[in-house]
């Protein structure tokens, strides 16, 4: 059974935060096409604070996710604060009492995060939101796990589904959030939240995969 120590995985939190901060302009540009062009600003602001708060003290993945959740809930308003905030908070809580992460633990964690977002935002697949990345990614991981694939293979399946899900938002008409006011005009461009979600899942999967392959960092 492939497992990763939560302590070893802690720095993946930093990878995620840095990736989001670096993608600021990219994410805002996507949001500008159908929304108000601030998705990168909102996300980068939150994750920059995360980097500050995590500082140099050691932390495990559970603590790292808790810090992201707390920071987003406490300092980032709008929709992203509560959505990604409860996503990370619930994922962190799913890790409570554990020292390591394995395939099934990861799936349980991801389900908890997804449930929090669905519960709060009530988005469905096809609404052209981050759910169009998150749900198919979780499903792909689940399917792979169901057919007996190991943790690394499941993560690869998740990565692929995330990329496909993001690309698929291009053909969707937004039904939720700011972009929904555009109706048909929202078709033809990616969804900003889907893009940040793909980035977060990819960075997480890459980090864990590296650890599984024994080459962290």
């Amino acid at each position, binding site marked *: 059974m492939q497992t990763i120590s939560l302590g070893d995985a802690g720095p993946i939190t930093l990878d995620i935060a840095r990736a989001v901060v670096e993608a600021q302009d990219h994410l805002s540009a996507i949001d500008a096409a159908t929304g108000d062009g601030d998705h990168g600003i909102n996300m980068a602001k939150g994750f920059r604070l995360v980097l500050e708060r995590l500082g140099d003290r050691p932390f495990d993945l559970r603590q790292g996710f808790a810090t992201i959740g707390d920071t987003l809930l406490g300092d980032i*308003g*709008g929709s992203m604060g509560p959505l990604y905030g409860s996503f990370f908070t619930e994922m962190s809580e799913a890790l409570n009492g554990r020292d390591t992460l394995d395939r099934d633990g990861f799936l349980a964690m991801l389900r908890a995060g997804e449930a929090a977002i669905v519960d709060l935002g009530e988005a469905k697949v096809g609404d052209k939101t981050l759910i169009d990345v998150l749900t198919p990614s979780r499903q792909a991981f689940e399917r792979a796990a169901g057919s007996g694939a190991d943790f690394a293979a499941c993560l690869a399946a998740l990565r692929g589904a995330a990329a496909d899900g993001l690309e698929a938002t291009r053909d969707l008409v937004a039904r939720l959030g700011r972009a929904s006011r555009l109706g048909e005009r929202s078709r033809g461009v990616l969804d900003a939240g889907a893009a940040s979600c793909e980035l977060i899942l990819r960075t997480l999967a890459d980090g864990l995969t590296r650890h599984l392959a024994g080459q962290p960092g």
Partner: protein
Amino acid sequence: MNRVINDPNQVTEDSLAGVLRAHPDLLTATDHPRVLRCAGPATSRVGVVTGGGSGHEPAFLGYVGPGLVDAVAVGEVFASPTAKSFHAAFREADRGQGVACLYGNYAGDNMNVKMAVKLAAKDGIQVETVVANDDVASAPADEADRRRGVAGEILMWKAGGARAAEGADLDGVIAASRKAIDNTRSIGIGLSACTIPANGKPNFSIETGTMEVGIGHHGEHGIAVLPVAPAREMAGIMLEKILADLPFDGEEVAVLVSGLGATPLMELYLLYGHVDEMLRARNVTPRHRFVGNYFTSLEMMGVSVTLCRLDGELDRLLRAPARSIGLTVAGS
């Protein structure tokens, strides 16, 4: 865009600092830097809370004061306050009798309030919510729960705040607030775009010579882009849309004409004149009249019209004394 700011990412903080210095008699800082509460001693009654993004001043913090809102959660420019700041506002406003959270229907606000209500429940604070959806242009009548809250929120705060001051219990305050907003409809016309300081350029545009009918308070698209019409026709277009949604025949109303920021006050009065005339021609009497920059969108040009159908209770609640940056009613 020439602005009176320092760091564009700090406008909300910097502005709050000025508000607190200007109105120590009205507003007090709290432990949460993004939550202000009504100055003065707290009497034992239901608390009234609101919150929303900055850039709409005097909304939202300008409606904190005696007879109005007790505590406000302040968001970044055009962004919902955080769940934690709504939660902190609930704690500030609660005096053991529960809190009425009266806010506007935006995705972010809905989510943050929802989470804050859960957090407050853990503290044993009972919070009931009314979400304003007075903007008739933001969704058809059969999807009214998708409609945005706009300047009609002010009348909801006034009614709820007055009912709380009268000593009603939480159900009573919620009922009055809901009655106010259920009888209120608004619509805006946008005449120019605006720029979020941190963005540096507008994220929507309105061509000179055109107007966006039904524009939202953040530049959300409206229902039609038309050539700029004379004020008389603007009034007609707006009233038609409102009255089709909630007929007002033979009744008394409150009318609120708000500028979106940069449209001169003389034009707001000019528009009010037409609205008043047209209402009276339909046998509708404007009993309460508000004309000014009550709910703005930074330096957007344009105007919104809000009508609230009155009954005896709403009339009494709007008439009740209140004091705040945005609205002062002397009482009679």
